């Protein structure tokens, strides 16, 4: 990755309790969450977080409840201040910002979408969508056009004069997304934005976000505890556990090479055929024309290749990316990739 990170988190620590600074040295010396709680009655929220968030892509932060996801994302716009460490946005340490500069960051450079929507119940849909310009001092007349444009884009034509309580949950979250888009900020923070929605509506919203992202290329930081959602949205995946980063990188890599039993557990239950792409399992290099029976795209899901091959494990396909042949996919390799690597049989499994 050669691009400068849009947001860089450096050696970030967050300790909750009556006197975090007093116990920070012990945490720096490696004291864990449980010990800190038992001996000093402080909660270790985040420990030595280092993450680079690339511009124009979706970074998903995933972890079980209580792993510190919400705490981490709230450091990016300083809804929470760290006990120690830096957060760089466009190369500037936002912890050096004064109140005024911080407000500017929140009004123009970052926007946020919340799990429970957090719309203003006494304002119309239009006024909610225009919250960022309104906070910056624009009148409703001035921001109406922009707000209406984004409301239409998320599929809420004609709802401008409704109040939030008149809309369904899915529609309310569309307002939440329109509100974030109307701010015209490069960065969008989304804390479990779809977790409160029904599965079907959730899928719709994920598709909407993918569409928007293909068009707008925002820097999105998306939090979820759902691996399927993470894999669907992520360009870059960060996995948190008990306040530290267990593994981060390209989702396909993490899936194929989990670095930790915690992640192996996490990824063991998903349908890999629906998540892995051809490029992750192909053999790179020269294609032997005689051995292949057809061409497939590097970004195809394995599932579609299985359908294409009708389950014949003897076949090979040439893999094409941007018009050029880049490798060969052996269906045998594909089948092997469908079960987690190096996984001993259940009977031999040792604790």
């Amino acid at each position: 990755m050669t691009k400068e990170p849009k947001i860089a988190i450096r050696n970030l620590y967050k300790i909750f309790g009556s006197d975090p600074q007093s116990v920070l040295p012990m945490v720096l010396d490696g004291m864990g969450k449980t010990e800190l709680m038992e001996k000093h009655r402080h909660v270790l929220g985040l420990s030595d977080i280092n993450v680079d968030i690339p511009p124009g892509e979706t970074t998903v932060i995933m972890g079980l409840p209580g792993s510190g996801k919400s705490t981490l994302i709230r450091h990016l716009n300083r809804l929470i201040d760290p006990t120690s460490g830096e957060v760089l946005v466009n190369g500037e340490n936002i912890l050096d910002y004064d109140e005024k500069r911080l407000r500017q960051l929140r009004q123009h450079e970052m926007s946020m979408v919340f799990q429970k929507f957090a719309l203003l119940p006494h304002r119309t849909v239009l006024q909610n969508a225009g919250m960022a310009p309104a906070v910056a001092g624009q009148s409703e007349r001035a921001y109406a056009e922009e707000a209406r444009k984004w409301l239409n884009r998320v599929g809420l034509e004609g709802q401008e004069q409704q109040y939030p309580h008149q809309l369904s949950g899915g529609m309310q979250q569309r307002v939440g997304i329109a509100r974030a888009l109307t701010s015209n900020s490069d960065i969008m923070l989304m804390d479990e934005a779809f977790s409160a929605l029904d599965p079907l509506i959730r899928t719709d919203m994920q598709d909407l976000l993918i569409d928007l992202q293909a068009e707008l290329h925002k820097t999105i930081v998306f939090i979820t505890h759902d691996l399927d959602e993470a894999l669907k949205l992520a360009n870059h995946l960060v996995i948190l556990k008990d306040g530290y980063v267990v593994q981060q990188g390209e989702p396909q890599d993490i899936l194929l090479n989990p670095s930790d039993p915690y992640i192996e557990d996490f990824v063991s239950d998903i349908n890999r055929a629906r998540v892995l792409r051809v490029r992750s399992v192909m053999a790179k290099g020269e294609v032997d024309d005689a051995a292949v029976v057809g061409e497939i795209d590097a970004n195809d899901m394995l599932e579609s290749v299985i359908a294409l091959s009708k389950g014949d494990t003897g076949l090979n396909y040439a893999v094409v990316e941007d018009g050029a042949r880049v490798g060969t996919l052996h269906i045998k390799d594909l089948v092997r990739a469908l079960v987690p690597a190096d996984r001993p049989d259940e009977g031999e499994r040792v604790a």
Partner: protein
Amino acid sequence: MPQSRDLTRGLEQGFLDIKDGLKVVVDPLTQPLSWALNEALWLMQATPWWIMIPVLMLITWAVSRSVKLAGFVALCFGFLAFIDFYDYTMQTLAIIFVCAFICVLFGVPIGIAMSRSDKVQRAMIPVLDMLQTLPPFVYLIPLIFLFSVTEPKLYGIAIILYAIVPVIRLTDLGIRLVDADVIEAADAFGMTKRQKLFGVQIPLALPNIMAGVNQTIMMSLAMVVIASLVSAPGLGVLVLRGIRSLELGVGLVSGLGIVLLTIILDRVTKAALARINASQN
């Protein structure tokens, strides 16, 4: 018991000693209250009934959007006028308007200050508890020493001290109960403290604040009767006359007038409250 006599005498002496100093400060500060009460009393009585009743109906309609309620208000005042209680009713109403307005004027900011700081809240709660539990008659005693009985502010202060508590409490509560997620969103979009207070916290606390206003009005009505003991005009005077000279009829009918007034004020403020609730949920 000599001890108890010593104590009461000591207290009395102490109060008399600081009285003059206190009067120098409190007298000018509270003078506007006397003016406001006098003006309101004059205005409400000088306005002829055929202007007053439509105005009251209009106010009712404006806050409740209910024609039925406006009609009910007209009916009640018509009845009170019919039994020749119109002037007394207007006097009581004038006092309540002024006192409730001042309660809101001071109570809401005090409630906001309490909601923003746990320290202020901790300091205020015992004071509010005391104001609420002290028997209303007890307020009157030191006030009688401080001001002459002919001054309207004497009963004005007594009513305000007694009735201001609920609006303070419910403003504090209402703001503290505002959804933390919405406050977080306001912060995340860079609102200033001021924008948050006027754009989010007060509007969302409004149902609770209005419930406080309703209670405040009810309590001023209760106190305005007691305040007749210290020259407050209005229906309370008739109740007192009923008690003093054992005029059973006067006492009962004026009691009925107070009940009618209570019902009207309660209905109108509750209707306003219901409208706010309906627009938010």
